[in-house]
């Protein structure tokens, strides 16, 4: 993530890179670009705190759903990182509203079938289990999206990038991030026992 203070919006702009998340309560903007990845915008409408997470669920989810699934566990953990930051600022998932973007489908993507489909399935199941209202979703399609989100108001803006060369540097980073998580989808956290 980088922060820019000199920009045309006249307020701090946080640009999320693939795999990043950020939450805030101030009058700032969070922006990112998603192709195959998803951008989840969460807003606590009682506390006026919001955040964005950029991630991908690395593979397909088994028929038993996301609870018993080790691929889905990576997506759940990405959501936990984002929600944890909002909770640290005083938020509570009971008053969250979500807006979902991304999961674009591109032919020949990462040599894996239906990554977009499993990411969309993940988001649907996750928000249902969490009982978090999805205010708007804009998922799928074969285009990339540029997202702006205001954490203080919860409003978001999406621009479709029809030209696939737009933001090509960003797309290269997304591709690197995706290859990284797909190559290492057995990523589990450390386990410590104190004596």
């Amino acid at each position: 993530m980088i922060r820019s203070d000199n920009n045309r919006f006249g307020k701090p702009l946080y640009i999320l890179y693939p795999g990043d998340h950020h939450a805030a309560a101030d009058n700032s903007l969070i922006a990112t670009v998603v192709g195959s990845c998803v951008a989840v915008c969460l807003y606590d409408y009682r506390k006026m705190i919001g955040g964005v997470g950029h991630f991908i669920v690395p593979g397909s989810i088994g028929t038993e759903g996301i609870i018993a699934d080790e691929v889905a566990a990576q997506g759940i953990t990405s959501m936990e990182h984002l929600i944890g930051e909002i909770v640290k600022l005083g938020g509570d998932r009971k008053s969250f509203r979500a807006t979902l973007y991304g999961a674009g489908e591109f032919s020949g993507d990462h040599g894996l079938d239906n990554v977009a489909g499993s990411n969309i399935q993940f988001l649907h199941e996750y928000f249902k289990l969490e009982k978090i209202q999805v205010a708007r979703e804009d998922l799928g399609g074969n285009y990339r999206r540029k997202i702006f989100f205001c954490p203080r108001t919860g409003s978001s803006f999406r621009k479709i990038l029809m030209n696939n060369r737009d933001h090509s540097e960003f797309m290269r980073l997304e591709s690197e991030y995706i290859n990284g998580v797909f190559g290492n989808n057995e990523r589990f956290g450390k386990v410590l026992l104190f004596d």
Partner: protein
Amino acid sequence: MKHIMVIDDSPTIRTSVEFALNGLGYAMDQAENGSDALEKVKSIKGKGEDVALCIVDINMPVMDGITFIGEFRKVDRFTPVLVLTTESEEGKIKAGKEAGASGWIVKPFKNQDMMDIVQKLVK
């Protein structure tokens, strides 16, 4: 009846921990924050039953995990408390240990690891 109390603000996480520990033969209880858990522990003990283990998240509204461990240790010095969190920073882990945690797992967890560590702790 022996209980395992799973304390996390995420229903998805609470259900997946329950799923992982299903075969162990404990009564599984859920709480959505530290203060909810303290009340539920009290009511279990009030019925003359035992809490064998608490599995607790760190970032939760109302009462976070570190505060919970401190409060829980005032009334129960020995029941193991296992932290399950996305936090992996040294300082946080140290604070958890000092508050009285017995172990620390960084999310996501492998079901087998969860089983193994829980069996070690409840022994």
